[in-house]
């Protein structure tokens, strides 16, 4: 293993995060605060509790998931696309690094950034509502696994994107709607039966549900199904990346 190479990529990416620390943290903090104001106060005044949990507290896991998903994808996709755009990728391709090591460096950094942001959101949420974590280890398991999985997904976008616009399309058109419709701010039990069934087709629902269980022991679907879903997406991303790398990363041909 080229540990120095992995470390170089990881530190290089984290250094970018440090350089833009204010923008990186300010945006999720402000967004979280706005969600609390809009959803917590405006809607929360009408929906006081869901499954016995105060509405403001109920939406915290969903908000964290929303941020983790979008941040993991955007961090990893940008991190890999940017050197492609500036042509500095030549150095990574010429270095004695295996594809696994390249992915480990980029995805590790993207997931780390998301985890930091996730923790900052939990702290921010504490200023607005009571946040209880019944199963901290399970919470960390979901948080880490989701960060890694969606950083891998972002890495794929970074490999395939043909422009900066390409980096935005999937997060805006697919991920954000899936998160909003995946029970971030409500329980699917509140929906009519037809829409409940439709919601079950949304994989993000399972992630949010499992994650929420680790906080309050309430969920829309079983913990096993949630775990299976996140592992399936993770394996899918790994297979896809392995296949793309075996074909020459799309940039070596």
């Amino acid at each position, binding site marked *: 293993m*080229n540990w120095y190479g992995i470390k170089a990529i990881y530190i290089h990416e984290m250094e970018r995060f440090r350089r833009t620390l204010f923008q990186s943290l300010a945006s999720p903090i402000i967004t979280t605060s706005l969600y609390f104001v809009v959803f917590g106060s405006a809607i929360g005044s009408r929906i006081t509790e869901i499954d016995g949990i105060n509405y403001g507290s109920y939406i915290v896991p969903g908000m964290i998931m929303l941020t983790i998903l979008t941040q993991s994808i955007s961090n990893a996709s940008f991190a890999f696309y940017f050197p492609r755009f500036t042509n500095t990728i030549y150095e990574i391709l010429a270095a004695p690094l295996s594809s696994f090591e390249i992915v480990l460096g980029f995805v590790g950094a993207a997931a780390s950034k998301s985890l930091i942001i996730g923790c900052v959101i939990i702290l921010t949420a504490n200023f607005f509502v009571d946040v209880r974590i019944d199963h901290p280890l399970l919470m960390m398991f979901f948080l880490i696994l989701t960060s890694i999985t969606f950083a891998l997904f972002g890495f794929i976008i970074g490999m395939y994107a043909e422009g900066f616009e390409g980096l935005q399309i999937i997060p805006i058109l697919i991920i954000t709607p899936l998160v909003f419709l995946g029970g971030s701010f409500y329980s699917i039990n509140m929906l009519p039966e037809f829409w409940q069934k439709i919601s079950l087709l949304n994989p993000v629902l399972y992630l949010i549900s499992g994650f929420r269980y680790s906080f309050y022991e309430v969920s829309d679907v079983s913990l096993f199904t949630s775990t299976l879903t996140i592992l399936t997406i993770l394996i899918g991303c790994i297979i896809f990346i392995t296949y793309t790398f075996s074909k020459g990363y799309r940039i070596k041909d």
Partner: protein
Amino acid sequence: MKNILEINNVTKFYKNSVKALENVNLNIKEGEIFALLGPNGAGKSTLINSICGIVNFNTGTIKINNMDIVKNYRITRKMTGIVPQELNLESFETVWNNVNYSRGLFGKRPDHNYIEKLLKQLSLWDKKDSKIKELSGGMKRRVLIAKALSHQPKLLFLDEPTASVDVELRKDMWDVVKKLNEDGVTIILTTHYIEEAEELSDRVAVINDGKIILVDEKDKLIKKLGEKTIKIELFEPIEKINGNLSKYNFTLDQTNKIISHTYNLNSNTTDITELLNDVKKDGYEIKDINTEQSSLEEIFIKLIKENNNELVRN
């Protein structure tokens, strides 16, 4: 001297089926400066990128220090460094971070003393904390060289190292290249500045349309394919070349005072002593003698023209 790089029958197609390299065979000796000449789009960069692992090639083998670059990529890539043609750098990073990052990528443990020495050698030490965006084009080019040397490679590829740099900086760069070579680094450079190849290289290859059309020692090449012109200035103008001089294919200039004869350096058809004796025998008084030798550039243009004509014929 042993070969540090061996390229055998390498062919490369791009996705759109464009053939970039066709059965390329080339050996590079350890310690030499080798120039790869060719017009734009000839395949120079593709060949270098194939050797360095930046692009995949389709068939053939490439060995560095007798090791296959695909099977033993971890060892062979540690031995190579590449300076790309474009100024591809992270604008917001400092020189120091940029160079240390490159060393890390190549699997070397941090060595601040070596990086300091390297930056001083390349006159970059004062700029170590400057961001890349604050540097001039010449400085950026030096940073690229520092990055390529950060892991102490044995084989350095310079892809058009002095493209779009001024004359002074070009000479500066040449000194850097010569110094590196003296320190034991084998250098392969691509260029279309023939002057550069002439100044730096020990051997030269000419590539055109993805094929190597010639490999030879620079001096031999000039000798083999080069032409020399002897210009004899006479005291008195002459009207016509005749007598003993008619056998030499002389030409007369507009002043009717300078006669010129062009001959191939490799052929033994022109005996200069005899030629000068014949001038004297015909009763001409010589005022001055001047000789001009064809440059690598003229040889290069001639070769490419011949090769293109051959391609059209086929």
